[in-house]
Every structure is written in structure tokens, then in C-alpha cells.
């Protein structure tokens, strides 16, 4: 059976988005319902595709399609996913219906059409960026994604939205340009080695690039990814963008789009520039560890919820980058699981924060809250769950990711893992401090009579909670899919894993 799954996954939301624009502006409910239907259909398609995925296949990519696009430059429309890509495509398609439902009333009726149309466009592009197997195509998606996000922040956000949107756009463009330069360099190298230049990912992986050249090209890609992810010190656009976005935008931005950075690291940097990756690993690890601790400490000192979440995400991105650059299977798989888990926990925190803000005049200042638990226990309960998910409570998805990253790190540099572990204490401190200030104590006067969640509001959170718990207790299916892809990547990098004694057969070995 040869269904163009991935193209269908992009076309469906794109067509859905165009139809959204054709719907009458005066009927916002119809627009929302339609957007939800499209998102759910895309999700259904993703699930059908995921069921077809062969975890133990030998081919690096599945569901591949390839059509020439600009043959003169060896550019083609090639898509396909490995385990890592599949997981992230799934994350994107799960979160879109969730945020549509959660952000049902985020914008006023006049703006509804454009908002939901942009969300659907973004979905198509997210699928594209995670499934491109042509580096140029990846670059195109990488840059085009900025457009809907720019409008989502700049048109529908808070008071400082224009400024935040421009900051986000310019910052991302700087990274994108560096990446474009490196991309052209890569093309030239491929033309020198193969006679005919190419952007095909697998062909590029097969190149034997001079290490010094690798180091230069690596930086171009790395800075773009480090801005996207964001790693310390390229992070300052994120707090502004997160603060001014609507919750739905923030979730897609931080939960999914920023994963393009870390996804790019594991998918493109490691296999294409193995020598440079090895060379720069200490630097990246240093940035990651700084990010973990710095992000957590700065989060501890925030007075604004959304900025706090942004810094906390930065801290978590530190873990993800750390896992990727220690070149161990546990680290790489852990990072991928963490990407997934972080997407879910970001959804949980921003959705609950969004509900809170909606009920309190749009304020995201922590000091404007207090005692929510007493008036809206269900909302406070979800808020606590979100905090727990962000501090990686064992049994939740983020724990699996975080612990595997730490194990993977410990294998190679035990002291780095030891330093990074301090982060989990600070994480607990800021997550619970936030919960304490928002949900406990005497109820703030402005929150008296605060309505608790409605069924429509509970549903998206329930989905996130169930998924977080399911991946926390049954990460098996995810790991099965991810492990081979990470293994393949690490084979290309070729840094041998440190020796771990093989486990003795369990039981029966009395001394």
C-alpha cells in the first residue's frame, strides 16, 4: 500500500485552513467547529499512519515520497519520517486539536476566522518541518513557519504583542540566515564531492566533509537551532513571545515549534557533521547545563506566570540538548521522549494559566492570584498536575525523558549529570512556589466567585493528563519507535559509548 501519508497530513490542514477563510465571519461557532473537525481528522490520519509504522524496519525513513522540485540544484520535495520525526509529528497533530479546544474563546468573534486558519496552516508546516528529508525543504519549512507564528503573536496577543512578534521574527531570521549560508556551503561541498550538488539528507550524511569545514558549517546550523530551541544565551526572545502570546500560540510555539531546534540537532547536526558535533560537544553541553540551572534560577525569580514558564522551558531545553550531545542511546532517546513530554507539560501549564487569566482580567502577574484552590478546585488540581509534570514527577512522561537524559549523561560525564541534577531541586522550588502563590492561602478578592472549569475546558486538559500518565507508565511504544532512530544516528556519529557492564541474568546467582 502506498499512501502519501505525510503529504496528506500537510494538505488536509492546509485545505481546511483555506476553507476556514471561506466560512462566514458572522458565524464564529461554525469556524471553530470546522477547525476542530479538520484538526481531529488530521489527528486521526496521524494515528492511522503511526499504526502502519514499522518500528524494526531497516530503512531509515518510512512513508517516503520524493518528487523533483528544482532539479538544477538537486532540490526535491522529499518527505519521510523515522521514529524521532514520527513522535514529533504525532505531538504536533495531538496538540493542535487540544489547543483549538482550549483556546475556543481566546480571541473575539471578529478575529476568530484568521486565528483558527493560521493555527491550521501552522499545523501543516509543523508536519512538514518534521518530515522533510531534503535539507532545503526543511529550511523552507523552517523559515515559512515564522510567518503564521508572527501573525499569531502580533495580531492576537497581549499588549506588547507587536514588539514581541518583531523580536521573535528578527531573532529567528538571524538564525535562519546563518543556516541558509551554511546550507549553501553544504551544497557546494556536496557538489565538489559528488559532481552534482544535492540537498538530499541521506546523500549529505554519506559525504565525507573535511573536519575544519564541518566546524564552520556546524556553527551556522547550530546557532539557528540554538535560537529556536532556545539555548542559553540565545533565549531572551522566548519570555517576551510567551508572555504576549495567547495560550494556544504559546503552546504550539514552545511545545512544538521550538522542538525544531532540538530536532534539528539530533536529525541534522549529529549525522551530517559528526566530527564537528564531537568537537563542539563540550561547548554545547556547557551551554545546556548553564541553561538548566540558569533557566531554573531565573524562573524562581519571575513575577509573571508566562515568563516563568518560558524560563522553565529554557531549563528543560537544556536537558534535551544535553541528552543529544552526550552521544549515548539513553541520552538521545531520553531527549526525544523529553521533547514529547515537554510538549505535553507545556500544554498543561499554558492551558491552565490561560484559564486562570481568562477568569482574572487577563493578568498573568503571580501577585494577582491567590487561593484559587478554594474557589475552583478542579482548575487548581490541573494546575498542580501541570506543576508536577514540569518538575518531572516519576510516573509522568517528563520523568522518563529527564531520567534517561541524566542516565545517558552520567554514563559519559558523571559530574555533568550531578550538576544537572541540582536543576531538579530548583525546578521543584519554582513550580511549587508558583502553585503555592496562585492556588493556596486566602482567596484573592478579585477571584471570589471564580467559576470552575466547564466540560469544554476540562476535555483538552484531560487529554493531556491521560497522555502524560500513559507515557509515564507505558513509555514502551514510544521508546520502541525512537530507539532505532537514535541508534542509527549515533552509529553515524561514531563516538563509542562508554563501557557499561552487561547485566547479569537476573536471579539465581547466589554468590
Amino acid at each position, binding site marked *: 500500500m502506498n499512501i502519501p501519508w505525510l503529504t496528506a497530513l500537510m494538505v488536509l490542514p492546509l485545505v481546511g485552513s483555506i476553507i476556514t477563510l471561506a466560512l462566514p465571519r458572522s458565524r464564529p461557532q461554525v469556524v471553530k467547529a470546522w477547525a476542530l473537525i479538520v484538526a481531529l481528522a488530521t489527528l486521526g490520519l496521524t494515528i492511522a499512519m503511526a499504526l502502519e509504522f514499522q518500528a524494526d524496519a531497516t530503512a531509515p525513513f518510512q512513508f517516503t515520497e520524493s518528487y523533483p522540485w528544482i532539479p538544477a540544484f538537486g532540490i526535491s520535495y522529499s518527505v519521510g519520517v523515522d521514529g524521532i520525526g514520527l513522535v514529533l509529528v504525532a505531538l504536533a497533530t495531538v496538540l493542535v486539536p487540544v489547543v483549538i479546544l482550549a483556546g475556543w474563546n481566546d480571541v473575539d468573534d471578529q478575529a476568530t476566522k484568521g486565528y483558527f486558519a493560521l493555527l491550521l496552516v501552522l499545523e501543516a508546516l509543523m508536519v512538514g518541518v518534521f518530515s522533510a528529508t531534503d535539507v532545503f525543504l526543511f529550511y523552507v519549512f523552517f523559515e515559512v513557519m515564522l510567518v503564521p507564528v508572527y501573525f499569531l503573536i502580533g495580531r492576537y496577543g497581549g499588549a506588547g504583542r507587536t514588539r514581541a512578534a518583531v*523580536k521573535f521574527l*528578527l*531573532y529567528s531570521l538571524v538564525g535562519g540566515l546563518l543556516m541558509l549560508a551554511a546550507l549553501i556551503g553544504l551544497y557546494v561541498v556536496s557538489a565538489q564531492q559528488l559532481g552534482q550538488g544535492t540537498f538530499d539528507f541521506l546523500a549529505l550524511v554519506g559525504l565525507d566533509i573535511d573536519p575544519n569545514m564541518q566546524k564552520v558549517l556546524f556553527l551556522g546550523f547550530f546557532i539557528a537551532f540554538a535560537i529556536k530551541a532556545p539555548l542559553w*544565551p540565545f533565549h*531572551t*526572545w522566548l519570555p517576551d513571545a510567551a508572555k504576549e502570546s495567547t495560550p494556544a500560540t504559546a503552546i504550539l510555539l514552545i511545545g512544538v515549534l521550538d522542538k525544531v531546534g532540538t530536532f534539528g540537532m539530533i536529525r541534522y547536526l549529529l549525522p551530517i557533521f559528526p566530527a564537528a558535533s564531537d568537537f563542539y560537544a563540550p561547548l554545547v553541553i556547557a551551554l545546556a547545563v548553564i541553561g538548566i540551572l540558569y533557566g531554573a*534560577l*531565573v524562573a*524562581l*525569580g*519571575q513575577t509573571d506566570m508566562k515568563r516563568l514558564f518560558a524560563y522553565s522551558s529554557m531549563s528543560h531545553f537544556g536537558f534535551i540538548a544535553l541528552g543529544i550531545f552526550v552521544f549515548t*542511546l*539513553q541520552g538521545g*532517546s*531520553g531527549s526525544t521522549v523529553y521533547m514529547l513530554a515537554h510538549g505535553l507539560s507545556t500544554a498543561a501549564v499554558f492551558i491552565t494559566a490561560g484559564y486562570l487569566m481568562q477568569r482574572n482580567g487577563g493578568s498573568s502577574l503571580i501577585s494577582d492570584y491567590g*487561593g484559587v484552590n*478554594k474557589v475552583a478546585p*478542579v482548575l487548581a*488540581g490541573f494546575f498542580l498536575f501541570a506543576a*508536577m509534570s514540569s518538575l518531572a*514527577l*516519576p*510516573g509522568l512522561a517528563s520523568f522518563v525523558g529527564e*531520567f*534517561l537524559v*541524566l*542516565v545517558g549523561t*552520567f554514563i559519559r560525564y*558523571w559530574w555533568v*549529570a*550531578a550538576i544537572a*541534577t*541540582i536543576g*531538579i*531541586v*530548583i525546578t*521543584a*522550588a519554582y513550580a*511549587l*512556589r508558583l502553585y*503555592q502563590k496562585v*492556588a*493556596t*492561602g*486566602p482567596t484573592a478578592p478579585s477571584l471570589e466567585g471564580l467559576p470552575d472549569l466547564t466540560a469544554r475546558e476540562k476535555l483538552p486538559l484531560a487529554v493531556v493528563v491521560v497522555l502524560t500518565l500513559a507515557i509515564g*507508565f507505558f513509555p*514502551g511504544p514510544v*521508546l520502541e519507535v525512537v*530507539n532505532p532512530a537514535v*541508534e542509527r544516528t549515533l552509529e553515524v556519529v561514531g563516538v563509542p559509548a562508554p563501557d*557499561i*557492564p*552487561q*547485566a*547479569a541474568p*537476573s*536471579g539465581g*546467582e*547466589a*554468590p
Partner: protein
Amino acid sequence: MIGTGAAMLSDSAPVLQPLAPASGVFAYLWVLLALPLFGAAVLLLGGRRTNRWGPYLGCLTVITAAAYAIALLVSMMALPADERAIGQSLYSWVAVGSFQAEFALQLDQLSMVFVLLITIVGSLIHVYSLGYMEHDVDRRKFFGYLNLFIAAMLLLVLADNYLLLYVGWEGVGLASYLLIGFWQFKPSAAAAAKKAFVMNRIGDVGLSLAIMLIFVTFGTVAFDSVFAQAGQASETTLTWIGLLLLLAACGKSAQFPLQAWLLDAMEGPTPVSALIHAATMVTAGVYLIVRSGAIFDGTAVALTVVAIVGVITMFLGAIIGSAKDDIKKALAGSTMSQIGYMIIAAGLGPIGYVFAIFHLLTHGVFKANLFLGAGSVIHGMDGQQDMRRYGALRTAMVVTWLTFMCGYLAIIGIPPFSGFFSKDDIIHAAFEKNWIIGVCGVLAAGITGFYMTRMIIMTFFGKARWEDDVHPHESKPVMTIPLIILGIGSLFTGAALVYWGDIVGWLEPVTGLQEEPLAIPTIALEGITLTVVLIGVAIAIAKYRSTVPVEPPPGNLLTVAARNSLYDDAINDALVVQPTYALSRGFVTVDDRVIDGTVEGSASLVGGVSRRLRLVQTGFARSYALLMVAGAILVAVVLVVVRLS
């Protein structure tokens, strides 16, 4: 005492028992976890619909679990001693390359006693809570959290590998957080809950690093394979693992230097203090160390540190317990001190593991009894917790008084009651290993006698110092019946476990046992200990017999320090909390000014330059034309010059 019948057991190393597959009654081991988990899920997700019957469901699940646990015990006793370890693998949980962690349960003699303690004491406290929490609007949630706790605690003791244990470990932490902060509208309760969780997290750093080091050293995190290979690892590695595990234990069991959260944890409802912060959760650290005995056996250094931590905490807790006027805080100090005993016993190595668990069991019963008794008093006194406002309650609350006395006799170790057996065993073992620790143990026993007698006198004897509108009354049967059961348990658990249960022989396959000759005869040691305890009792009687002022007297330096919990909060604040917040504030400034300043600065630089450049755009078409002509002429001149040169 025990040594008499156990001579033949001496010097046996812990035997690594092969795990038998779960069959028969053991096949449903997972149900043990599932029952309370189901209760928690129904109560917490069911919402207000379950308000009416929810609490009863909560009790029912735990009681059923207790019944099942007893059935398990009976079946286990029927098995030969070396086939009592049962393993049940449910599914592969986290599997990445060589890192394999199964979701697998293990029930051996050690887990069995814990399961019994948790479910039986847990059931009694659930029933008691029906009365204690009767008027609380959120009592459905309370029972939900309690059930969640029971499930997590059972997972902690049933896990067959370190990673799964970690899930239970943090799970109980979460339940403890929720229950300490149960009355969240009180800022003090919310702060105490957060403090407990964060301090526990510091311990968890130790546990997670220990797990990583265990994996790197042994290639596995499953108990049986780790312990089988423990002998092959270098002593340095084992020492590190041991110290990291100790850090974890310090967090969970409120041992020095992570002890400060336990006193604040008394903000939770009293049944919570009884169940979590006395009988079960806080003893998880002892479980962890004893369970990892095979690792500690290879490292004298780590064991010594364990023992030292135990000694320090034993005294800290006892001193704090002697000065607090809040009945629950005094009991919390006592809990710290008693867990100190257990940690000491664990730090003695194979000599002491068994006795650590033995004391843990008896303590679990009598401390639950004491806390529930205190709860009954608080209930009867309309929430008053200050012992200076009690007095003469023995006539008003007869059942509470009598049961409290049972716990009292047990904890100070009057023969033949529980504490006598378990505490004297630890002191005995300590003298076998190191007489200094032994002497410390005897001294702390004396202080125990002092603070418990002080508590009894201030609460039940003397003149009534009640506040005006307080009319103490005996609690309802739903509270007193668990008290009576626990009271009887306090008196006889020790004897029962020694003479009928043969606790030493029961645990010996898991923990190993080793006995060494003792310089002084056992009976003399018992005599000395008892004398010291009685001296402590006598001092307390002398001091508090006459009058107890309602306002605390000034007191000497030590008393003041002890009333302030030996300044643990101030120390933590100065050493950790304030520096962290200072660092946080500093980084916020750096982030806004320096890092974002650079970004914004480069943006304003470009902006500034273009603001000046745009002045060229005057809007006069002819000046643009002039510029173009000038440019063209310039280009032409340059061309000519270049051509000519």
C-alpha cells in the same frame, strides 16, 4: 532476649534468594497496589457525586488490601524459608539499550512486614479519620489522598528495582505534599507542604544519582542482580552509592541535615501525621538502607556515616521533643529521634539491619497510637495543640488516656512492652559494634523517658489549664476503637514479634545476621538502660509535677534553642534559601540587563543608525535626482581614474 534462640543464625550473610514466580495467592500481587489506587482514582475523579459514600470506599479498599496482605502472609509462612521471595513482572517499563527497568513487583519477607504495617495501620487510621475528619467539607479528597499515599507506599516497598522504587518514593512525597497542605487556605500549611517537598527533592537528587551510579556500575537497576554483583564493585564506588542512598534516606526520613521539614509537616491533619509522618513514609529511608544492605556491606565508610547521622538526629529529635509545647511537634521530634535509632541500627551493618526493621515495626504501631491519641485530644480540645493549655485530661478522656499510656509505656521501653524489645536490641547491637554509639543510645533512651513523661504529665495530669470555652469530651467509638486496637498493639507487638513471630529468623534470609560477643551480660545492659530511662522519667516528674505555667517560662539557652527546633530553619535559610534567592535575583537582573540588553541594544543600534540615515529622504524629487547624478558622476570619475592609473 532474642540472642538465646538465634545462636544458630549467627554470622550468616544475607542470602540472595532466587525470586520464585508469583503463583497461587501471590498471582494477584498487583491487586494490592490497584485497590488503593482505584479508591484514589474514584474519589479524586468522581467529584462531589462521591462525597457521601467516598470515604467509606476509601476505607474499604485499604481494609481489603490489609485482608489480602494477611492472606499473603499466611501463604508465605507456609513456604520454606528460602523460597519466600516472590517476583511478579508486569511489563517492561523503561527499556533503552542496556538500561532496562521493568514494572515488576517483589514480595519477600522484608516487603511483607512493610505491606502488613502499611495496610493494617493504614486501615486503622482510615477508620479513625472517618471520625476525625467528619466535619471537613473536603473529606472525600482527604480519603482520596490517603488512598493515593497507600498505593504509592506499597509501590515503594514492592518495587523490584530502584527506578520503580523511585516512583513510589516520589509518589509518597506527592501524597505527603497534598496532605500536609490539605488545609491549603492556611498559608502556613501551604508553606510547610512546599518545604517538605523541596527538601525531599534534595534527598531525591541523592536517590537519582545513586540509581545512575548503580546502573553504570552494575549494568542494571534490578535489586537481585545488583545485590548479586555488589561484592565485585570497588569499595569507593560502593561508598559513593551508599552515601547517595543515605542522602535520599535523610530527605525522606527527616534525618540530619534534612530534618527541618518534619516539624512543619505537623500542619497536616493529625491522621496524616500518624500515618505518613510517623508510621510509614518517614521510615522509607530505613527501608532503603536495609534493602540495599548488600551495597552497604561492602563499605565501612558509608555505614559509619549512616550511624553518625543516626546518632546526631537521635539527639536532635530528642532535644527538640523535650522543649516543644505543641503536642504534635513534640511527637514529631520524638519520631525523628526514634528514626535516628533505626538509622543507627542500619548503620551498624548486618548486626543491626534486622533490629532497624524490628524497631520500625513496633515504632510504627506505638507512634501511630500516640499520634492518634494526640489527635483525639486535639479533637476534644477544639483544635488546641498547646500542651500548656491541657492538663487533667485523664478524667475527661479515659479511653484516650489509657491508650496513650500504652503507647507511652511502649516508647520509653518498659518491659515487657514493645519498645523494650526493639530499642534494647538496637542498643545491644550498638554495644557489639561500637560502645560509643551504645552509650549514645542509652542516653537518648533517657531523654525519651523525659520528654514522653513530660508530655503525659502536661496533657493528662495536673490541673486543668483549659481555655475558657473548651469542654473536653471523649471521642466517638469510630476513633476510640482504632486507638484501643493500636494501644493493645503497642503493648504487645514487640513481644509477639519476638516470641511468636520470630522476627529475626523471618527477616534473616533478606538482611543477614551477625552476632558478636558482648563485653557485658545482656541482662546488665537492660538494667542500665532501664535505669537511665527511669531517671529521665523521674526528672520529668520532678520538674512538671507541681505546676505548669500557661506561658512558657524563659528557660535556659538549650531550651530556647530547642523550642526553635535548634534553629534549623534559620540555618537552612542562611546557608541555602537566601543564597539561592539572591542568585535568582542576580540572574534575573543579568538576564534583563546583560543578555537581553545585548539583544535589545543591537536592535536599538540598528534603529539609531537608520533614524539618522533616513533624514536623507527629504521628499524632494529633485534632490533625489541630484544625488543620482552625483552618484553617476562619481562612478564615472572612479572608472576613469582606475583606467588611467
